[in-house]
């Protein structure tokens, strides 16, 4: 069997960070091929190289055995590669049908766009996927699941020979996933090559023939799925025993620090109540789009909420004011490090001291390297690997960036730390360090709320698990009650 698409020894680095190093594998016609690895293992970089977004620094791609050099996504598209990205990439102002047809709209004889045919085509694709979305409505305002479905329809419409899907199912319900798989299998059987990226092993075993495993930007192995157990895969992904990753320390649970009661925001979450006590790590679990981050952002005040209350250390917290939350002793390490956690263009020291600059100022002025001393002390405590404190924080690797965010909030001396996906996109070693740090802090009496999509992390770290489903609390589980199954069951509302 000839390889439809080959990745030959590619390397790609961003600044000092090597995202992919010497990776090779092949996709065959009529094959569904899984690409697995932890967050930050380099999967998305591979996807972007296949899509023509990134050019490999070294190494090449080959289609039908011939080397290709994609100057941009148009070339990849022309070569028959369609990509569904992790984050939807729709045009909010255009109609759903236009989004799907962009680039190969059906034309009338005058080379004008045939809107009727375009809408009908979209309608047909949605029927095939078994969903109903009005093709004429604008893409703006679609729910995440619907956006993902439009993305899938878009990829299907291009009749590509290679279909790359980067976590397409993260926001979908069981029924929708089944439909997607049925369509995908049909495509595969027609001779297309599918590259499938997912964190759900049951999906991989259900759909794929072969699996390529990556770790820290390197290729680990490519083997038939049938030859590996789930445990094998995890071991190869992680490269070490799971228990070492989650160094949970015993902590004495103290008095209640945070009480969230009946928190609601229209269209996002409703009637969410839970408490967090000192020394406790509470995990917020659930599917993407279940409203976990939104709840915690409302608690911290970066988002508003419609009703309910947040009590912190016995006092009602002013809604909609991160400043009040900070002053009361709360910190939030947000989900999106690049957009929310750090100011990439600013230096490391400015980032570390950003929430603290008022406290550091004397007579309202910041003089004589006071910020640098503060930043130096915290980055050292967290063993951050960096060049100079005056370098832009964007030059650091993901793990070290996350340490800077942690340093920034630990420097404020919080009583409650909210960490949202604290180990997303960072290497395994740093991951363990972050986990150890959180455990140590909890043991010292800090209350921690951890939002995480990684079940092992949730199970390994949390004292208590609050599971959200579609914006409300589906279950609260103690450490003893929690298993993968029980959490997933609560998160999906059905046996998984």
């Amino acid at each position, binding site marked *: 069997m000839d390889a439809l698409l080959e990745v030959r020894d590619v390397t790609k680095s961003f600044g000092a960070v090597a995202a992919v190093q010497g990776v090779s594998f092949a996709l065959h016609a009529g094959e569904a091929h899984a690409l697995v690895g932890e967050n930050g293992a380099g999967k998305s970089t591979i996807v972007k190289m296949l899509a023509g977004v990134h050019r490999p620094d070294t190494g090449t791609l080959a289609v039908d055995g011939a080397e290709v050099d994609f100057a941009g996504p148009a070339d990849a598209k022309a070569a028959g590669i369609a990509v569904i990205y992790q984050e939807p990439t729709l045009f909010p*102002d255009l109609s759903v049908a*236009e989004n799907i047809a*962009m680039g190969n709209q059906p034309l009338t004889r005058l080379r004008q*766009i045939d809107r009727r045919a375009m809408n009908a085509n979209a309608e047909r694709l949605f029927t095939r996927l078994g969903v109903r979305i009005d093709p*004429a*409505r604008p893409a703006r305002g679609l729910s995440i699941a619907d956006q993902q479905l439009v993305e899938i329809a878009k990829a299907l419409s291009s009749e590509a020979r290679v279909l790359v899907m980067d976590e397409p199912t993260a926001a979908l319900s069981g029924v*929708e996933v089944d439909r997607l798989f049925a369509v995908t299998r049909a495509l595969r059987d027609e001779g297309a090559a599918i590259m499938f990226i997912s964190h759900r092993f049951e999906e991989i075993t259900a759909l794929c023939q072969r699996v390529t495993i990556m770790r820290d930007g390197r290729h680990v192995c490519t083997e038939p799925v049938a030859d590996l157990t789930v445990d094998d895969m995890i071991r190869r992904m992680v490269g070490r025993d799971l228990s070492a990753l989650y160094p949970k320390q015993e902590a004495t649970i103290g008095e209640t620090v945070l009480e969230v009661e009946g928190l609601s925001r229209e269209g996002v979450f409703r009637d969410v109540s839970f408490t967090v006590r000192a020394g406790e790590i509470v995990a917020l679990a659930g599917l993407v789009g279940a409203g976990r981050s939104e709840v915690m952002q409302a608690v911290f005040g970066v988002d508003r909420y419609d009703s309910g209350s947040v009590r912190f250390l016995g006092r009602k917290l002013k809604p909609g004011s991160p400043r009040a939350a900070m002053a009361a002793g709360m910190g939030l390490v947000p989900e999106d490090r690049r957009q929310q956690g750090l100011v990439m263009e600013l230096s490391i020291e400015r980032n570390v001291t950003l929430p603290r600059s008022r406290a550091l100022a004397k007579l309202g002025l910041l003089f004589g390297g006071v910020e640098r001393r503060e930043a130096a002390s915290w980055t050292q405590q967290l063993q951050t690997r960096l060049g100079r404190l005056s370098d832009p924080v964007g030059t650091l690797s993901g793990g070290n960036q996350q340490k800077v965010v942690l340093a920034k909030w630990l420097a404020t001396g919080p009583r409650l730390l909210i960490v949202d996906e604290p180990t997303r996109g960072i290497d395994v070693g740093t991951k363990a360090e972050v986990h150890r740090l959180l455990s140590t802090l909890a043991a010292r009496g800090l209350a921690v709320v951890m939002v995480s999509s990684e079940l092992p992390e949730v199970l390994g770290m949390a004292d208590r698990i609050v599971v959200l489903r579609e914006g409300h609390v589906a279950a609260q589980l103690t450490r003893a009650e929690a298993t993968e199954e029980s959490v997933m069951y609560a998160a999906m509302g059905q046996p998984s």
Partner: protein
Amino acid sequence: MTAALVTKSKRPALSAGGLMKTRELGIILALAILVIFTAVNHPRFLSGQSIRDILLNTAILAVMAAGQAVVVITRNIDLSVGSVLGLSAFTVATMMSTNPDLPMIAALLVGLAVGAVAGLINGVLVRYGRVPALVVTLGTLYMFRGITYSWAGGQQVNADELPRHFLRFANASVLGVPWLVLIAVVVVGGVSVLMRNYRVGRELYAMGSSPQAAELAGIRVARNLLGAFLLSGALAGLAGVLFAARFGTVDASAGNGYELTVVAAVVVGGVAVFGGSGTVWGAGLGALLLTVIGSALAVLDINQFWQQAIVGALILFAICADRLVAVRIARSLRKRDSHV
């Protein structure tokens, strides 16, 4: 997310097309009210000559607004149009005064070419120099104007130096419709159709709606962007020829400060400054509305000094209205999709 499947069956109350229509409808309504009010007080406002004058005055602005709308839809801006108009008007006027035998079409082509080159320079700097459009076109606003000034050196081309046929072009008409107006209608109509019904037009909307997604979708962003700036420049160049023919007197300051009026027409016409939405014919209507306001104020004998203030208030009103509508629609869409 199963509930999403259930609620999706409802047809949306406002489709994308319907939304856009309401926006232009607002301008037409405002125009109608203004015209009727003025005409009731001054019936001569609706005389043939008066309508002719308004349309002639709109023509130049509308041609430039069409080009500007395309650029703004791609989430860029072209502040250099006033200077390009000046450069083109002076080039063409000088050319026609030294070569009075050249046909009108030569003047039009030269104007278009001068503008196209200027637009291309803008486009190349924006795309390949990765310099924001605001900075590039602010820079070329100075540069093109400076070139015109240095070249003209205080000279002026007067009506009596220009060939008859060139000047007559501004007033001559086909079937009672002046050439100028005809050109404006063809330009606005043509660009509207291009933007609405052709792939390249939809790609330009897509680029403005989400630049990253446009790159990922394999849209030829560079080509399209150069095209948009080239079009804006070329139309400003064309406007320069029309300007020279209409006003007969051209000096280096022709079209000074026009850029703000053009941007105002586009914004009032419902094109969002952050790209992706609005229509070219809406921008044309915006140009008409601004001109009618000017004429109506003169006819109603309202202190002409109010004109600029009213234009400013209108811009603010237009963007506030767009914002409110957007918020309301976002809310209604979310409600429809939500199940919580």
